[in-house]
Structures are given as structure tokens and as C-alpha cells.
């Protein structure tokens, strides 16, 4: 069942991307990166299947919070995130990206930060603190990942996403959130599927597509995991901002090496905060 919740989502994601993007087209180069808007749709489809395989059912829309936890909203949000990705076929500038991610992050924060964190009679300030904190994190992660897509190749970016999702999964499992850890595991499997697709079709890009999914879903799962656990905030924060370290490979001293070395170095840099995060989370686990 565990593999079922990872391999099939990865397959769904790859099939959706291949059908929608048709990367074997002759004019794929002229379409540039916008052709891969469907990564957002593929990730959403795979995530929905993973949720069904891991949890056992899919909540009806709108999500009834008496029967499901607020993070269940992420299934529907992930599909909605395919819309801005598709829209970028027509409008693709920084203003439109910021507008889409800001709206998505604020709405998602409002939906997924659980209201139980505020006890009866207490001020709802804590709730708003978390909602705004989540939105700011999602926007920052989007900015980091989106800018990273411009400096690292598709395959390397897929690998960074893979390790990022695996790290999120491990932090969640160490903080006793196995269900959400499995969902992150499914995201890592889908990232690996994109890496494999990228081996054949080198133009693959997460830019303005899958980046929305990662920037919204990974912090969404981590926020819910942190609030439900007793693990400190540090490992969650370190993991989510780990991709910023990939910029370390842009140093002039490293740029003189072959592309493969640069890719490996950028992944190595991402591992630094991830390793610290996992060590801290493990200390609280044992």
C-alpha cells in the first residue's frame, strides 16, 4: 500500500505531463518552458490519488472539517493551482506570478491553518499569526524556487524537489505525523518521475507550474504537522528554506566546473540545512 501510494501518483504525474506537454513535438523548443504548465496538473492528480490511497477516501467539496482535518483542503487547492500555471501560457511576467501566488497563499492559509489551535475564549490573533506566517512562507518559497528554475536545469531542479520532499517527509515522520509524511513521500516520488521524464526530454521545466504546487503544499503539510506535534519549529523552517542554499553553486569558483559538477554541488548545498534539520528532529524523536 505504501508503494501503491507513491508509484501510482508518480505514474499519474508523468502520464499527465507527457499527454499535455507532448514534449516530442517538433516545436517544443519554440514553446519554451510554458509547455510544461501541466506539471502542476500532474502533481495535483498524483497527490489526489496518493491521498485516496493513504487515507482511504477523498473528502467531498467543500471539505467538512467535522470529518476531515483542514489539510485535506490541499487536494482541491492543488487542482486550482493548475489554473495560474495554465494562465502563464498567455501572461507570464513577475507581476502575474506574484499576484497568483499571493492570492493562492492567503486563501490556502485561511483554509488550512486549523482553528483548534485557539482555545475557546482566547483571542484569534494566534490563528491570524499562523495564517499570515504560512502565506509569507509560501510566497518566499515560491520566489526561491521560481528563481532557481532559471539557474538550474530541469533535471537538477527535479532532484532538488525530490530531496526537499523527502526531507519534509522525514521531519514529519519524526514528529509523529506519518500520514502527512506519506503524502510528502508521494510528492517526492512525483518529483523523481519528473527527473526521469527530464532524462529523455531535457527541456522540462517546473517554472511557473509545479513551483506553485510545491510552494503551497509543502509548507501546508509542514505547518499542520508542526501544530499537531511537539517537535520544535527549527527543523520545519530549515527544511522549507533549504532550496535557497542551492544558490551556493552560483559562486564564480564553482561555475567554472562542468554542468554535472555544478548540479551536484547545488544539491550538496541543499543537503546542509536538511541534515541539520533532520538531526534536530531526530534528537526530539529519540
Amino acid at each position, binding site marked *: *500500500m505504501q508503494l501503491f501510494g507513491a508509484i501510482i501518483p508518480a505514474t499519474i504525474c508523468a502520464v499527465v505531463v507527457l499527454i499535455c506537454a507532448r514534449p516530442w513535438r517538433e516545436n517544443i523548443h519554440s514553446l519554451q518552458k510554458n509547455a510544461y504548465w501541466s506539471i502542476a496538473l500532474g502533481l495535483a492528480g498524483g497527490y489526489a490519488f496518493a491521498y485516496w490511497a493513504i*487515507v*482511504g*477516501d477523498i473528502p467531498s467539496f467543500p471539505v467538512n472539517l*467535522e*470529518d476531515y*482535518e483542514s489539510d485535506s483542503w490541499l487536494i482541491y487547492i492543488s487542482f486550482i493551482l493548475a489554473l495560474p500555471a495554465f494562465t502563464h501560457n498567455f501572461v507570464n511576467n513577475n507581476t502575474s506570478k506574484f499576484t497568483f501566488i499571493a492570492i493562492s497563499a492567503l486563501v490556502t492559509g485561511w483554509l488550512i491553518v*486549523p482553528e*483548534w489551535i485557539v482555545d475557546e475564549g482566547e483571542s484569534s490573533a494566534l490563528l491570524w499569526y499562523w495564517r499570515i506566517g504560512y502565506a509569507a512562507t509560501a510566497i518566499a518559497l515560491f520566489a526561491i524556487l521560481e528563481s532557481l528554475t532559471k539557474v538550474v536545469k530541469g533535471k537538477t531542479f527535479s532532484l532538488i524537489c525530490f530531496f526537499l520532499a523527502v526531507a519534509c517527509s522525514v521531519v514529519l515522520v519524526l*514528529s*509523529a*505525523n*506519518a*500520514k*502527512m509524511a506519506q503524502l510528502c513521500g508521494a510528492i517526492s516520488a512525483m518529483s523523481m518521475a519528473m527527473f526521469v521524464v527530464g532524462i529523455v526530454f531535457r527541456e522540462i521545466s517546473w517554472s511557473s507550474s509545479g513551483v506553485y504546487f510545491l510552494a503551497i503544499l509543502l509548507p501546508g503539510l509542514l505547518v*499542520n*504537522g508542526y*501544530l*499537531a*506535534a*511537539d517537535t520544535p519549529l527549527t527543523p520545519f523552517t530549515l527544511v522549507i528554506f533549504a532550496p535557497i542554499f542551492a544558490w551556493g553553486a552560483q559562486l564564480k569558483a564553482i561555475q567554472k566546473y562542468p554542468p554535472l559538477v555544478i548540479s551536484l554541488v547545488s544539491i550538496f548545498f541543499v543537503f546542509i540545512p536538511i541534515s541539520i534539520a533532520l538531526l534536530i528532529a531526530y534528537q526530539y*524523536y529519540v
Partner: protein
Amino acid sequence: MKLLTCFAFVAIMFATTISADEYKVDASHSMMAFKVKHLGVSYTHGRFNDFKGNFTFDANDTSKNSISIKIAAKSIDSNSAKRDDHLRGKDFFFVKKYKTLSFESTSFKKKEGSKNEFIVEGTMKMHGKKKTITVDAKLVGEGKDPWGGYRCGFSCSFTIKRSDFGMKYMIGGISDEVHITADVEGIRK
């Protein structure tokens, strides 16, 4: 005056005999335990260490009988600290959100043809959801204790489906059916 005193005494005695006895649960001599099938091959046992409750019991007039139990969810103890952390987490009891489990009886009747067995119906609240359940209760005994008090104890057992309470995670490996045993000893108030 003597007649009045005698009348008052009889009235008090009569009142005592018609009212059911109220008991406070003695947690140190009671247990809320459960067992659940693991991977279909064996049972894993656990218990809750922090609970309180009251019950009213009259063997002759069961219409007055009732029981109320409240359990602190975070006190779960399955003899494995890491598993307990997981059980307290979002995948299972989610104790940060659902702090207590409770049972309130709605009827407490003698089982037909039995002297010391009872059928207790009531509402169980767990994981934020309420469900009506039926509990088999057996009166183990009652009598005076060495410290001048009066005690009464029941052994109860019942089975629930955790999915009925929205606890659906890992139903393949950890069975949906949970067998619960509640041994309750009360001290008369």
C-alpha cells in the same frame, strides 16, 4: 417527642433504602484498557492512565443506575514511548485537538436471566465524534472495605470500530475493531 424522633428515624431509613448509591470511581483500582489486532497476527494492548468518573447503582431498581467516565486522551500508554507519541498525534487520537474521551450512559439494565450482568447503553465520545454504544457490564462484587467505606465494582467489555469515530489511518495494519475492557471500582460517596 419520642414518637417524632422514631418517625424521623424511620423516614431517614426509608429514604436511604429507596435512593440508589452514588459512587466515585477509584482510578487506582480501575483500568481502561484496549486491545487492537496488529497485522492480523496478534493483539497489541494499551490503556489510559488518567481518568475519572462516577456511577449510580441500585441492584433492585436499575432505572436509577447510570455511569459517567471521562478519560484524558494524552494518558494513553501502550508500553512503547514512540508508539504512544504516534498514538497521541494527528494520525490517531490527535490529543492536541481532542483532549478527552468520554462515556455517558443512557440506560443501565439487568440482563435477562442474570443476577449480576447488565447491559449499559450510552454515548461514547472519541476523536470529536459521538456514537451510541452498548456495553456488557458484570457486577464483580460489592461490600465494605477495611477503612469503613463501601465499594462496588464492575467489569465491562465492548467492541467499537475506530473508523466510526473518524480514526481511519492504517486500518489495514491496525484493525478497525478495538476491544475495550473497563474494570471500574467505585467508592460510595
